[in-house]
């Protein structure tokens, strides 16, 4: 349920337009509303079936990209930094971080076109706008509470897959962007660029005064409101030895190094208002996302800016109470009497923040601390047939043991909040079970973006089925 509200807000006829005064000589810049280019929408971490022995991570930004949004298409912000973090000890502090920075080049400054018809590759001058990125690997070591970072630039000038403008501009878009899949010397595989938003949910019914499409929840017939929208993704495949605490591959699910926690963040520059003639200071984290539920549903908005600024190691202290006594359980009961336990929800804390013992809980850490990371046991073999309900559906290779693209986190979260893990099993759901586009069997797994030419967002309806 990540940034549903943002996405919904963007969709509801752009209700959050920038209000500006009518008498215009005095200045008011827009208030704080949307910051799509820094907005983490989802983080996924799993072991891909075709790539055992590696951690696969996908992180998405920029919610609700309408494919036809030209001629100034969406992109990563050249002046921000994008992160994927890995915690391999379970303390909620990053041990390995991958930092992505971008630079956009316009080949012909006199043209406002993104690309001329028939653009065939990154070197083709018909591709007028090209964004490239560099990736830096940070190693964090903590001594006396200080974070000592050593960093290494892994690659520079790698191309970002461009937005899918349409078949005339990119006659074979898939081939074009396949060239954006890169392998580094250390075995890391990378893809950065536009993709189909892999998230799926029925938003419209809920915002239309809770207008049901079907009398039951997990029975299909929901409308996938994110179908046909695109996002910007960073997809990485990292050999286990690059992310584990001992720098070795994982021998099995019981191995001490088997569990890693993953999340993604965005940083923006802190400018100096005055003095130092336009100087700038350090960086400020403005967005983060681990588990799909926590950021948007558990954290009240009064704490949201703070949540986005802080790191997972402080989660228990700052936000633990919102998980232990989730307002949502009370709301569900007050309105519909689902019998959800309202207090003492250590089951949710464990499932989402501590990890399930003997499955995805970090080994050898006291507590373990409640930290909002996606904890994935790299030793769990990928399921031969995925169940969209993941662990509560009997498929231990799925959410919350990692998060796969097809895991139906909306339904899972609803059922968990209703008390599934405490024996209160209620077949809740939003009626949308899968993404509108099939995921790919191979890297980068996320489906290609809908083209601007074919843009028709929010049109897929889930077929009905029994609960």
């Amino acid at each position, binding site marked *: *349920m990540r940034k549903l509200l943002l996405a919904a807000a963007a969709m509801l006829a752009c209700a959050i337009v920038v209000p500006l005064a009518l008498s215009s000589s005095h200045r008011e810049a827009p208030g704080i509303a949307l910051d799509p280019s820094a907005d983490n929408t989802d983080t996924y971490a799993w072991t891909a079936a075709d790539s055992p022995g590696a951690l696969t991570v996908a992180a998405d930004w920029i919610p609700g990209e309408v494919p036809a949004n030209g001629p*100034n298409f969406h992109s990563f912000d050249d002046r921000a930094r994008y992160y994927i973090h890995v915690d391999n000890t379970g303390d909620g502090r990053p041990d390995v971080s991958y930092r992505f920075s971008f630079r956009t080049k316009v080949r012909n400054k006199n043209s406002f076109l993104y690309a001329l018809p028939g653009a065939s590759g990154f070197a083709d001058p018909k591709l007028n706008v090209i964004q490239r990125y560099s990736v830096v690997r940070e190693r964090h070591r903590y001594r006396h509470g200080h974070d000592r970072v050593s960093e290494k630039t892994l690659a520079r000038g790698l191309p970002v897959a461009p937005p899918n403008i349409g078949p005339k501009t990119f006659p074979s878009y898939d081939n074009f962007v396949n060239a954006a899949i890169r392998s580094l010397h250390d075995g890391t595989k990378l893809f950065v660029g536009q993709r189909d938003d892999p998230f799926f949910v029925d938003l419209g019914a*809920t915002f239309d005064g809770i207008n049901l499409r079907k009398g039951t929840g997990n029975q299909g017939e929901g409308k996938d409101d994110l179908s046909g929208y695109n996002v910007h993704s960073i997809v990485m495949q990292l050999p286990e030895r690059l992310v584990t605490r001992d720098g070795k591959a994982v021998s099995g699910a019981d191995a001490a190094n088997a569990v890693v926690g993953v999340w993604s963040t965005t940083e923006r520059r802190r400018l100096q208002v005055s003095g130092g003639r336009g100087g700038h200071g350090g960086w400020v984290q403005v967005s983060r996302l681990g588990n799909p539920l926590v950021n948007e549903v558990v954290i009240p908005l009064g704490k949201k800016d703070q949540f986005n600024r802080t790191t997972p190691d402080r989660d228990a202290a700052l936000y633990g109470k919102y998980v232990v006594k989730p307002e949502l359980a009370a709301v*569900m009961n007050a309105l519909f009497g689902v019998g959800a336990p309202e207090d003492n929800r250590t089951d949710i804390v464990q499932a989402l923040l501590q990890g399930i013992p003997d499955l995805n809980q970090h080994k050898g850490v006291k507590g373990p601390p409640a930290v909002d990371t996606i904890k994935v046991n790299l030793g769990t073999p990928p399921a031969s047939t995925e169940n969209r309900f993941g662990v509560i559906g009997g498929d231990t290779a799925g959410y919350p043991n990692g998060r796969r693209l097809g895991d139906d986190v909306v339904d899972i979260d609803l059922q968990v909040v209703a008390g599934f893990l405490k024996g209160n099993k209620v077949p809740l*759901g939003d009626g949308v079970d899968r993404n509108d586009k099939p995921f790919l069997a191979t890297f980068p797994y996320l489906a290609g973006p809908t083209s601007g030419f074919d843009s028709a967002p929010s049109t897929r309806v889930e077929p009905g089925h029994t609960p």
Partner: protein
Amino acid sequence: MSRLAAPLAVFGAVLVAMVALNHGATTPPAPAAAGTGGRDYAALGNTYLARARETGDPAFYSRAERAFDLSLRTHPAGVDGLVGAGTLAGFRHDFREELRLGREARRAAPQLARPLPVIADAEIELGRYGDAARTIQRLVDTKPGLPAYARVSYYRELHGDVVGAVRAMRYAISAGSSEEGTAYVETLLGDLELMRGRTAAARAAYRSALRDVKDFPQALTGLARIDAAGGSLTRAAARLRRSTNRLPLTTALTFLAEVESALGRRRAAAADLAAARVQHRLLRRSRTLPDAEAVLFEANHGSPARAVALGRRVWRLAPSIRSADALGWGLTRAGRPGEGLVWARRALRTGSVDPTFRLHAGLAALRSGRRGEARRYLTAAVRGAAALSPGARRLLEESLG
């Protein structure tokens, strides 16, 4: 489960509750109240403010006010209601009220960045530049992004650091927002580039804004400024016509009148000025307080004596450098350039390089017999001449004669 006739409704209720919860309340509303109250009314208020913008009709301000009132009645400490009402107060030039509401919102939700832009805008307009610097710094330290960067830029501009202002505005554009938000800061970059005499860069910025939002009125006005400065008055008039048809802003209407007048189209110019007057009246009727812009309009196109009286009132309402400039110019136009010069110097006290401020200071100095000081201001104004309206540029050219 029969008592679960509507599990999807549960999901819906959960989301609606999220809306209520996530609304920034420090204490979440009781579940029974979820989905109603403060947040919905505040959202409605914001929609009315947006409608005001789309239609140019300030009557929407009153509707927005009612919505924010309802919001605050249901939820007196609701951040959305307070921020919305504060923003509206700013639109109506009631900057003290804007500051009060912004601070109240800050107290209600000390962890949220959202009240800071409201507070900063009010502090700027009240001439409290030191306070504004601290507020904007807090904003950019906690929530850097387009709103923070655009305000850093404005602060630097007001203090004469145009290079730094351009740099910060590029950060704002790069971060982006909604399309209208991005178009707005691209237009502001164009204005900054014009101020430092970089016409080509300004044109590129305005054009980029127009690609984000077709016929974005302020960007059309910016291009018209470039046209007019380059002598293409007919083209400037056509663009301004498009801009004011889309949104009848008083500044654009006045600018259009000056262009029409320079083209010798007196009837059209008179009609545009009449339209600007109507718009000023509509603003007053919607309980918008007069500001520096109204003073300048009166000084240039109405009665300088009335401009002085209005200017004094505006200075009391909002003792900013803009208000000082407007009052000074009113005095100069009313034949009291000595007093005008005092106020004009006050307008330049933060180091602003605004060419209009400098022109007004130069003319006040010239008319009070201080030729050396006048030359300094006027030659400095020439650098930003492209940003001046045709009327102001004519004055500049005549004075440099």
